[in-house]
């Protein structure tokens, strides 16, 4: 039985999506798979339970038979933190080991979704370093190529865990850098004994949020049809200029949500003239019938919010950067990227999975 720990040193690099992508492909390749998340720090409270939503989603998506308690055995809630600070000792390593034994029974491979950062989990002795040591799980480090690639981080992780670093996946590489990463960065890492299992190009679909998510996040009333809300929002633009300059401004970005005053019909029409995924109208002004008609023609949903533009922008911005992956089309796209850019054979061999 093999184990793989998916590690990262920063948030929102695509860890959960990668876990699903790996597990699905492994299932397709005929392996029996298990999944668990040794440590959950962001937990959701529902009326009758406390749970890790991401883990629950993955369990359901993959049709896993382990219970949610086994899949996400350690939930760090504020009350847990408080009791530890008060001096109470809880043996989480034991809980984890028991859950791991249950999840891994009769499996070819178990994928562990690691912590967000290198230090996360220190309070309960379940950092990436500690878990990979405890369960003897080699780590696959996920990094992203934002504006620069932090090679330092990769090298220091290697220095820290040594052989337990199985290799890296470089995610979200912008198209112009792709060539550079391929020809310079990857050979360098390989020469330092760090296998590069995959290099994934940046994909706007994966980076964006859907109008649905935006609507759910900022609230407000929807004008238009629900089915249009599957459109992706890649960025936000604020409409606050004179009408003359607006068209040229809105043309600079595609798949955007335009946030503007509900009384600015001129800007609303200009935005609808360009590639816009949604109009967010502030101040609770209902748009004119003409704007609604035009939006209908272009199938662009309008979200009406009571806040002013500044507050709305502030709130909407928080949604970006924390990419949600709970969407079939995103998972599908990510799987396609993995099939194309990730070397599964090399991974199987590295973790000792017989083909």
């Amino acid at each position, binding site marked *: 039985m093999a184990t793989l720990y998916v590690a990262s040193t920063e948030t929102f690099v695509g860890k959960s999506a990668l876990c699903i992508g790996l597990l699905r492909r492994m299932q397709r390749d005929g392996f029996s798979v298990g999944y668990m998340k040794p440590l959950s720090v962001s937990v959701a409270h529902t009326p009758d339970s406390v749970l890790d939503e991401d883990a629950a989603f993955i369990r359901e998506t993959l049709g896993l038979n382990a219970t949610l308690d086994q899949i996400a055995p350690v939930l760090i809630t504020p009350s847990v933190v408080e009791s530890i600070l008060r001096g109470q000792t809880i043996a989480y390593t034991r809980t984890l080991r028991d859950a791991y034994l249950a999840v891994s029974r009769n499996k070819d491979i178990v994928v562990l979704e690691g912590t967000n950062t290198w230090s996360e989990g220190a309070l309960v002795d379940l950092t990436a370093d500690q878990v990979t040591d405890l369960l003897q799980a080699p780590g696959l480090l996920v990094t992203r190529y934002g*504006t620069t690639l932090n090679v330092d981080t990769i090298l220091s992780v290697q220095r820290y865990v040594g052989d337990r670093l199985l290799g890296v996946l470089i995610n979200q590489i912008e198209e112009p*850098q792709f060539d550079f990463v391929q020809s310079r960065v990857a050979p360098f890492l390989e020469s330092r004994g760090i296998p590069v299992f995959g290099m994934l190009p940046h994909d706007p679909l994966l980076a964006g949020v859907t109008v649905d998510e935006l609507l759910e996040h900022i609230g407000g009333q929807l004008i238009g049809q629900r089915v249009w809300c599957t459109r992706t929002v890649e960025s936000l633009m604020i409409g606050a200029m004179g*009408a003359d300059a607006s068209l040229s401004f809105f043309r600079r970005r*595609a798949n955007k949500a335009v946030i503007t005053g509900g009384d600015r*019909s*001129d800007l609303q*029409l200009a935005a609808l003239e360009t590639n816009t995924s949604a109009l967010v109208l502030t101040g609770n002004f209902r748009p*004119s019938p003409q704007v609604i*008609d035009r939006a209908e023609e272009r199938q662009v949903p309008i979200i009406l919010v009571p806040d002013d533009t500044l507050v709305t922008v502030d709130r909407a911005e928080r949604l970006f950067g924390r990419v949600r992956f709970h969407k079939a089309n995103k998972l599908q796209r990510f799987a396609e990227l993995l099939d194309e850019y990730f070397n599964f054979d090399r991974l199987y061999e590295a973790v000792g999975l017989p083909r």
Partner: protein
Amino acid sequence: MLQAIFAPRSVAVIGASPDPNRIGHTVFKNMVESGYTGAVFPIHPQVTSILGHRAYPSVLAVPGPVDLAVLAIPAAHVLAMVDECGQKGVRGLVVITSGFKEIGGEGKELERQLISRVRAYNMRMIGPNSLGLIDTYTRLNASFAGLMPDTGNIALMSQSGAICTAILDWSKGQGIGFSRFVSLGNKADIDEVALLHAWNRDPQSKVILAYLEDISDGPAFIAAAREVTRNTPVVAIKSGTTAAGSLAAAAHTGSLAGSENAYEAAFAQCGILRARTVNELFDLAVLFASQPLIQGNRVAIVTNSGGMGIIATDAVAHGGLTMSSFSPVTIACLHERLPPSANLYNPIDLLGDARSDRYEVAMNAALADPAVDGLIVLLTPQAQSDLVCTAEVIAATAARYTKPVVTSFMGAYSLGAALEVLRTRQIPNYTFPERAVQSLAAMYRHYERTQRPAAIYRNYAVPIEQVRAIFAAARSAGRIELNEREVRLVLAAYGLRVPVSRLARSPDEAAELGTTLGYPVVMKVVSPDILLKSEIGAVQMGVADASAARESFTLIDYRARKYWPGARIRGVLVQELVRPGREVLIAVNRDPQFGPLVALGLSGVYVEVFKDVAFRLAPLSAQEVHAQIRELRAYPLLRGAGGTPPADIAAIEETVLRVSQLVVDCPEIVELDLNPLIVHGPGEGAIVLDARILVQ
């Protein structure tokens, strides 16, 4: 000429009502009382007779044929009635009913169904949401206007029904007559373009007036207006072009106003005279309607006040007209017959005690002079003036010549009777001389246009398939901006010169590329997020060697990231150094109503501080580009003024023409900037230093 609409042989009024409070009643009453000689049928489900005319329950029950049907019924019944009209063989509709597109939602859908039925029955339609239409020659008044206008030779279309009634009311008091009067309403079928075509070469209309809030199809409008203004002057008010005005228009009509610059260019290129105020609209209308067309730009002024003569002379110079230099014959004639202290040279000053006889002498002398194309007659009421008699003499003298004569009788209290004479004798009078001069100047602009040779459009041979493939690739990658390489390929395909350049993604790569291209080179950041590259120091000129190239790469990268953390930086472009020249900006912005608007100016302060930019709409003819470049205030600099070397103006013109063809060929381009285009000396050509292309 839309016979069924303007000259029907029979009319049915659907919704005619015996109740005087209903619009249907007013419409029918107007039909009956306007003097229309064709058959008129009121249609009403119950009543048997309205205003002494036999009423029918349905248009299908009318015994003879019906050419035109006027609908003044609730919106819910309109479709059913249109079906009956279609079955009856009605050819024209005037739909007064409102509750269509203007209310949005269901109304819009209703309008869509209405128009599809109108098309299916092969009918033409005015409206819906229209005040109706009036033709003073066929005496057709299919409107709910309160008045029937006087017969005249001004055709008017208005997108606002309320403005129609206001104009009607006002003109009646001014003695201004109309040939046709149309309230366009929602213009679902017949719009401004259809009416321009219909009124082209209309013998009863000497001038076309238009009040427009939006234009349905910009390119079709321009094409129609180009054609019409070769024969008939068109004067238009386009409202909603200021920022506040366009917001008002957006809320009112739901149309995204084209930019002010686009309207200005569109009207100028298609020869429409643009009125800024309703006052100006009628100043021009009255002049075109009553006076012969001016045949040149030389005017004479006759006045009984030296001061007013000078004011008018200033206005002539400002308005683009010139003061005539009289022939010796004219001077001699004036010398012989005017008092010794009168001024015989243009402006002719008849002195304050002038009576009608002096006016007659001066006008005859001036109008007979071949160096005079038009005449402005000024009068200030003095104790000795014989106002009414002078007005009579002016009208009688003007009638003997085929040159336009306008007057400015200044004052009000004592002028009533004299002004009435001028009005009835069709001499346009303006309260102040400036307006008189401006109107003549506009008339001259129209004349000039009618004399212009037909435009010549060049067509350069272009490997269009290659260009299409580039756009297709960008589209399939979901990009809205072409990358550096694609821009170069597109420009090169259209015959524009671009410097040799390559993208470097590391300091070493920059050094290698510099060696390949040959030092010195130019280096600049490539990022879709950073527009003002040189302002933030992300452009390095004259990079001399490999080590400088490495340093420049690092510096540029650093500055770009510092200026905009998180900017998408593609790398640094290493480019062949182009020797300096005049820097010109060519920018295209696709206007939602009129299409590609091409801006031209000298880069830097000329554009940014002095806003010295000339706009034209593509496609551009060679003549239009010729005029565009000469319209720049900085044009003398290109020609070589103040010690600056002259630039290759022909190369700029050719570049604009090639760009014009590019944006017309490729409708996916929404914005294009060549900034700067480096222009060298005459015959040495021009080269595009930096460019960007945005697509939709």
